[in-house]
């Protein structure tokens, strides 16, 4: 199976929660400056972290489109500020957020979050705000998965691209670092990879 490419955008190595996935051949970590357009276009999927160089991605948007055209998947973490996929628009930060604005609620089922108490993901050591502090605006036709605060702002969503491929968008700190439970973090990482590769319970869900 062609692995998902985890784009390394800092000096840090692949997050340890992905080590087993990498050992099993499901994930390959590639430093962003060494990633060729052909690597992107031929990838099964890409996983980005909050530090991804978006000025670089926008220059490679044609290669990303080719990957999606071929049915590839893109898992985005963090704040989108460049439209490296057609239709993406800039992150909308919450204005003067209060504690209640960080509460999370499930809006739709999805294999990445199934059976996980998303309410427990909203805090780290009782402190809220890591999960999300605003949202990347969903594209038309996207399915909102989790909502932030009383207005249920779409902090997580998926989108099946009409021309092919799909996006999973988490508009906050890297998904594998949220909440306090290490087992849940590992589970989220594993499921994100499964979704990217259409494996297991993520086989069909966009």
């Amino acid at each position, binding site marked *: 199976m062609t692995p998902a490419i985890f784009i390394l955008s800092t*000096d840090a190595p692949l997050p340890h929660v992905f080590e087993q996935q990498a050992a099993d051949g499901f994930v390959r970590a590639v430093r962003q400056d060494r990633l060729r357009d052909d690597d992107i276009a031929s990838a099964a999927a890409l996983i980005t972290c909050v530090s991804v160089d*978006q000025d*670089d991605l926008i220059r490679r948007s044609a290669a990303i489109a080719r990957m999606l055209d071929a049915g590839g998947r893109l898992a985005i973490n963090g704040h989108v*500020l460049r439209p490296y996929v057609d239709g993406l628009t800039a992150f909308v930060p919450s204005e003067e957020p209060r504690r209640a604005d960080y509460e999370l609620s499930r809006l739709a089922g999805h294999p990445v979050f199934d059976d996980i108490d998303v309410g427990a993901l909203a805090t780290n*050591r009782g402190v809220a*705000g890591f999960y999300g*502090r605003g949202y990347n605006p969903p594209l038309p036709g996207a399915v909102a998965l989790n909502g932030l605060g009383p207005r249920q702002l779409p902090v997580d969503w998926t989108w099946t691209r009409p021309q092919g491929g799909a996006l999973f968008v988490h508009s906050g700190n890297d998904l594998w670092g949220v909440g306090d439970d290490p087992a849940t973090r590992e589970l989220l990482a594993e499921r994100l990879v499964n979704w990217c590769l259409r494996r297991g319970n993520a086989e069909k869900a966009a």
Partner: protein
Amino acid sequence: MKLLAVNAGAAYQIEAVEGRYRSYFDATIPPEDIATTRLDAFDAMIVLCRTPAFRMEPHARRLRTYLDGGGTVIAMGECHSERWLPGIRFEPCETNFWWWLEPGADLGVRIAQPGHPLFSRLAEADITWHLHGFFTPPAGAEALVVAQGNRPILYVDEVTTKGRMVLTSLDPFFHHGHHFMPATTRFLDGFLPWVREGMAG
């Protein structure tokens, strides 16, 4: 003072140079363009928090030439400046993100030179959020902020090169650019005007 920003393209860096602080920067380039940019057209360059060292290391020699020509390089936190600037000794530390949860807790960050012009703009609360590591500056360098027993976390070095280096392990652009932690915005509100006005010491 003409200021060049090195922006590695992360959301928090883009937000920093295109948002609230955009008027402070005369130009913005990615690290790779250091090789082709006339650095001496700028009085100072600032490398934003969390710029990957692997993108700065190829330019170490050019940065040294710029410094020896009288330029100023400001290297912010979490960008491993010890790997691409001369004379830096840095010891990272494990970051306690939760110190403030304990009532009355003190991270131990202190202003080392209260009479320094930078601190007419910044109070102790504006330099206190996290610790990422400590420097051992060379003799003759000036420590401006210290933490946990007089260990420098922000200093000015005018002795290692013919120019000036401002080094810190504080990472305000990261948090400000992530819309997180008001102290970091207050820090930049004071720090960037000080830089822009020539870094009076």
